[in-house]
């Protein structure tokens, strides 16, 4: 259930994101989800890709600071209150979320999150009948 998310350090410089996406595109790597966290000096790209190991390798060759991070992807109905219900479960268990990003397609919403303890997060969510998505499923959406 763990998804290997690609995390990349980027300086705030014009054209850097274009370069990154270009490299991945030419390597035939698809990005399913992407978010950018930014500060005044730098940004961090977090993205779920079709082939994380290959992407890691290629970006290293291009001198990017890059790592793979364990995240989990939760799916809920695309309805008011659904996310709140899911987060409530984690909150009750005292699991804090480092960061998350989400998107929805039709009836479904997808929430990618990094928590302080990914294995426990998976366990707790499963116990509460929440539906988790595997990397392969996400890539086929």
């Amino acid at each position, binding site marked *: 259930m763990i998804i290997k998310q690609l995390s990349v*350090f980027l*300086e705030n410089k014009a054209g850097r994101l274009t370069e990154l996406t270009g490299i991945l595109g030419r390597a035939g790597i698809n990005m399913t989800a992407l978010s950018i*966290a930014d*500060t005044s000096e730098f940004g961090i790209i*977090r993205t779920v890709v079709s082939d994380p190991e290959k992407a890691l390798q290629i970006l290293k060759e291009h001198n*990017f*600071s890059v*790592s793979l991070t364990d995240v989990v992807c939760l799916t809920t109905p695309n309805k008011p209150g659904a996310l709140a219900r899911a987060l409530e479960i984690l909150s009750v268990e005292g699991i804090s979320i480092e960061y998350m990003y989400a998107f929805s397609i039709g009836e479904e919403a997808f929430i990618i999150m*990094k928590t302080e303890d990914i294995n426990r997060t998976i366990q707790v969510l499963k116990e509460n009948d929440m539906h988790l998505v595997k990397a392969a499923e996400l890539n086929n959406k």
Partner: protein
Amino acid sequence: MIWNEKFETMPGEEMRKWQGEKLREMIERIYYNVPFYRRKLQELNILPEDIEGIDDLARLPFTTKEDLRDNYPYNLFAVPMSEIIRIHASSGTTGKPTVVGYTRRDIAHWSEVVARILTSAGVERDDYIHVAYGYGLFTGGLGIHYGSEKVGATVIPISAGNTKKQLQLMEDLGSTVLACTPSYALYLAETIDELNIERDRLKLRIGIFGAEPWTDSMRKKVEERLNIKAIDIYGLSEIIGPGVASECEYQEGLHINEDHFIPEIIDPETLEVLPPGERGELVFTTVTKEGLPLLRYRTGDLSRLIYEKCRCGRTLVRMEKCLGRSDDMLIIRGVNIFPSQIESILLEMGETEPHYRLVVDRENNLDILEVQVEVGDQFFSDEIKKLEQLTAKIRRNIESTLGISVKVKLVEPKTFERYEGKTLRVIDRRKLD
């Protein structure tokens, strides 16, 4: 092992006598052959026959890099050009290059002093010396090359650049000694990690590193990563190139080949010779040089001299590892800062790559120092919080050591080029006004 027992273990009094004689001969040569020096000596009312011994050195005029530039290219040479068999030029770290020339005897002396420093580093006939200093006008490559041949070791004149191929050849040819700049050594170590080359496949045991200032923490890092003994050597083209001074196995200061290059330490402001053991600007007089003899040449390098006899048995005076040049020194809001201090802090923290650049600017009449540091893969966290903590920690460490406030910026890996040459560590935008 000691290459030249006679000079390297010569008792102090005897050395001073030798230096005095050589100085007298030198003054005679430059008085009659170099108009620049004759004029300077005449201004001070000094005639060659006034020089009785080494104690007269302090009365003599200095030579500066500026003098070399003013006399560009050949006007300070003390022999006809037909006697000059080789030209080199300084790497021009600060400004325009300076040209130096060697007679056949100078080249022989140069090979001799380099043979001494290689031997003191532990190099023997059986070694394979991978010379990754640049060959060409830079004295590093050819200087080490000739000394290595004199020792009788096997020289691999690989020169600089094409790092992957270098590593392949280093493995195939069984190089045991690596001679290059310390920053290139670190770059090689990084490339070894990147290519997942097992260290056992390399036979390296000694590193001969010089041509730029580097700290003891950087030495530790290079020694650990390459699993070698890293020896610091010192030299500059104006004096001869590599071979002026070098550490021995004990790594407690660099033995100066003082039978050829007489050192002094002066106060860079008052130009007075400082009492033994005090730190100041290093000055050399090249008493045996024929092509380009220099009288009291101000190196701009800061060091101090150690007179106690070394455990290795050499009596040659030692200089402390040179950590900065007076012209590398930055004055930020009145505080003197050497780039090497920042390097030490980063290396001691061990949480970033030791690759950095200092950018100095002036905003509203206030100096701003920005320290840019590369974030390596192993230190990269995808949480903003942790990267901000790292930035804050670097800032705190620098501020508490240097006593000035700085701005720290994390930059992508390999932002700063590190090749065979000297890494550009400082960009001072204040000077562009």
